[in-house]
């Protein structure tokens, strides 16, 4: 079973984000990048599936040095080899352009039985790229996955999806498929010292747009379906009103405000 796990480098969630001068994105120069949180769960799921069914886990990431770094830590966690999509032309991709580039890389690598990605990224955060990738590849897909059972002999998967309101559903789909993995599906492992040492000998190849046979108008900013006109911090509609007094007084005042002012009860 060949599994490709996609990893997106994003600014460390602990870092303070500053809007750039043209107000079109954040200042990236001083930031530390890490793997998007949901992608850690998807890589862990890939590693567990491999441990159960044998095969290979390939990790795939697009970007500059920050992508090389998340790939190296993925190899240290236990992935077998990595593919680094490295080209200044890839910069500024939206979900659409990113998905098309990732799809071309997966095709160039001979396809996969299973492609895993995090349910959403910590930056754009819309959960689109994985499903778009499935359409570019012509693979089946399932989103918001909280459980995976693979049957490599029958080339089928049973996956559990988390829907709204505490509802779960189980769906069956054939190989090859793309799954977007929900937070909390497993407990991602840390890289061991042995893993870090072993990672140094693992294959990490870099492919450019030319290597993928993608013309300039399909990648990065040129291939994006939308441009960011403005990045801004939304104005908060309200400021908190702190209600004072003893607990009983505050409770009484609050109830009065909920009834007369907010009119919600």
């Amino acid at each position, binding site marked *: 079973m060949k599994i490709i796990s996609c990893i997106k480098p994003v600014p460390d*969630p602990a870092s303070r*984000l500053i809007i750039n001068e043209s107000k079109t994105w*954040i200042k990236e120069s001083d930031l530390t990048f890490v793997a998007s949180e949901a992608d850690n769960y998807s890589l862990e799921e890939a590693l567990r599936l491999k441990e159960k069914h044998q095969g290979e886990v390939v990790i795939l990431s697009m970007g500059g040095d920050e992508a090389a770094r998340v790939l190296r830590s993925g190899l240290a966690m236990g992935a077998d080899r990595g593919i680094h999509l490295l080209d200044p032309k890839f910069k500024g991709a939206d*979900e*659409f352009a990113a*998905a098309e580039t990732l799809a071309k890389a997966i095709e160039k690598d001979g396809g996969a039985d299973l492609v895993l990605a995090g349910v959403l990224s910590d*930056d*754009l*955060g*819309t*959960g*689109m*790229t994985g*499903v*778009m990738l*499935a*359409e570019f590849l012509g693979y089946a*897909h*399932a*989103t*918001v996955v909280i459980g995976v059972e693979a049957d490599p002999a029958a080339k089928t998967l*049973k996956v559990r*999806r988390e*829907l*709204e*309101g*505490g*509802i779960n*559903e*189980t*769906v*069956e*789909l054939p190989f090859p498929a793309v799954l977007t993995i929900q*937070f*909390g599906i497993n407990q991602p492992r840390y890289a061991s010292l042995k893993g870090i040492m072993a990672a140094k000998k693992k294959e990490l190849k870099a492919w450019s747009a030319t290597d993928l046979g993608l013309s300039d108008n399909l990648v990065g900013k040129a291939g*994006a*379906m939308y*441009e*960011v*006109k403005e*990045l*801004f*911090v*939304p104005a*908060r509609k*309200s400021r*908190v*009103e*702190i*209600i004072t007094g003893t*607990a*009983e007084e*505050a*409770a009484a005042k*609050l*109830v009065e405000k*909920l009834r007369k002012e*907010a009119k*919600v*009860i």
Partner: protein
Amino acid sequence: MIFVITEHKDNKLKSITSEALVLAQRVGQDFGQPITAIVLGSNVSGLVDELKTKQIDRVVVAEHPDLAEYSPDRYVEALKTILGNEKPFLVIAGHTTQGIDFAPRLSVSLRRPLIAGCVDYEKQGDKLLLTRQVFNAKMNIKTGLRGDPPCFATVSPGAFSTDDLKAGGSAEVVSVSLQFSGPVRRKLIERIEAQKGKVDLTAAPIIVAGGRGLKEKDNFKIIFELADSLGASVGASRPVVDSEWLAREYQVGSSGQTVSPKLYFAVGISGAIQHLVGMQTSRCIVAINKDVEAPIFKVAHYGIVDDLFKVVPALTKIFNDLKLG
């Protein structure tokens, strides 16, 4: 023409569809575009009647046994056929586990933009700029679309109030019969509904949510008592669920449910971003926490900075006396 792809369950429209219709009505008015609601399903006449009462121009209904349950393969095929015969300006679906499951495939297969999780829009000349959230809802981006219409959008739950949905239409109803030729690759095996007595928090008008500040499992009973006094549903933050004080189904936040009730009590919840993204669009937020620096106060409308073990029973007593439950 603006299209809204309806989402429904048990022959009832989901709230997200009304919210999507609000966006459609506003954009429609600004750009002089009529509105069509698309209903995919089987035996959906009740939905059509409900949609006809809204101020829209047309309802397109495609009934087929294969559409009785949501299927990404069938939805994509059906929508490609229906939209292929039209001149769409904007196609809107909900930013739900269903909307994000098929809209990206449509966007790719028609090579048109998809702006996901929209919270607002702007008319700039004859251009539509859609706004959506990024960085865990800390910031928004205003997007400019490439090329000519159509574009696809998913609307973020809670961004548009269903109170603003205009009624009073006389929509024309058009039935289309579809013949499917593509494979159904993904098959639904079973759907496990929320356990009995458990409420779909996404539809709850009032939620009382408790967090780590409750200190231990047994203390959670004061949350249930407050909820009972109000006829409210109970929610929880992630630490509560991870400590197994409550089942995961109660979790509100990025890895739990996204809710937008009219009234949300955050009790002993500090307000990690993962929690805030799941509830910050609630109409009225009350935070009860003894730490005045807790980030929950940044999104709250009313706050009480005090010991929750004193405040919550006091509130429960008042609500019980008012007999709201």
